[in-house]
């Protein structure tokens, strides 16, 4: 299930009971694209219940970053697990958009 809540031009997307992997990426991509087309310029991806991000999940986040960046907006990933944070740091993803864990702030 994907929970999307919106406040002005900011949308929070929370995958619930699913991981950010090849099987869930198409639906998430559709929802994110719809939100951006509808005027959203800040997307907060809440990974609080996500255990795993695979290469296609990374691709989706980078696509969302590219879309929002072009429109002067931003992507933020919050509540990432420690393993996911470590992965993003090793790939230097956190240098491009904000990534934070449960109680730490990275940018």
């Amino acid at each position, binding site marked *: 299930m994907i929970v999307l809540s919106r406040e002005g031009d900011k949308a929070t997307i929370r995958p619930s009971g699913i991981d950010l992997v090849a099987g869930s990426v198409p639906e998430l991509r559709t929802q994110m694209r719809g939100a951006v087309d509808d005027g959203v310029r800040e997307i907060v991806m809440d990974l609080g219940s996500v255990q795993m991000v695979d290469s296609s999940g990374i*691709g989706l986040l980078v696509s969302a*970053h590219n879309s929002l960046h*072009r429109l002067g907006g931003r992507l933020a990933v919050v509540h990432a697990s420690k393993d996911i944070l*470590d992965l993003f740091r*090793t790939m230097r993803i956190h240098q491009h958009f904000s990534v934070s864990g449960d109680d730490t*702030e990275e940018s």
Partner: protein
Amino acid sequence: MKAFQPTGDLEADFLTECHELLDYIEADLSALDQDGAETKEDVVNRIFRAAHSIKSGAGFFDLAVLRDLAQKIESAIDLIRSRQMPPSHEVVDLLSHGFDQAGDLIEQYRKGEPADVSQLVAVLDELIVDHLPFEEKFLFDARVEVALPQAGGIVEASVLDLMQARRRGKSIYLIRYDLMRDIQRQGKTPWEVFKSLIESGTILETVLDLHSAGTLNDPPSNQLPLVVLYATPLELERVAALAHIPAERIQLVETNRAS
């Protein structure tokens, strides 16, 4: 400075391993203090490897304070190894203090906030720069752009990291992954791939090609290139086996042999 909670099993294992390493080299530090310049090479090498392991692991887990301290200790021991700095009592004392502080940092990381060790790092910096060859003094802490001839573009890496890799006979490779083809479709996770690389060398830098992912309006990209600048003593064929990709996508940037 960020707070850190070592919630992942891998970090917890790493922090435990650090403690074991520190216990293990205590006798070696005493031998270094006692025997000075006459210390057996394998003793100095063991101390060096301990600092290197702590630095690499701390870098991997983004424990910046511990990584920076271990890097300075490693650089100082490297100067002893290469006989550019005599292991005087004062020097060994400083190194022992550095390892003690590393042990304290590990405890602090377990609980949350690491202490500020910038003063000790500055003292180690001074010691290292004092003993660096003249031509390297001015490059300390500098970064250099390494051209990526086939991949295109450049990647920034630490000058000292590159020099240390060279001095230790590590060759520099450029590994060109495609996250979709080489990792996703092989049923592997990026995490597994990075871990096996770190076990046999040093990841100097990584560059992800953001552009190739396109935007949300583009069709999903079936490629996501990631370039890894990697230092290891291994031959190219063995790097290919380790990285699980064909040798033609690994480029030897420079060959170095231990002197």
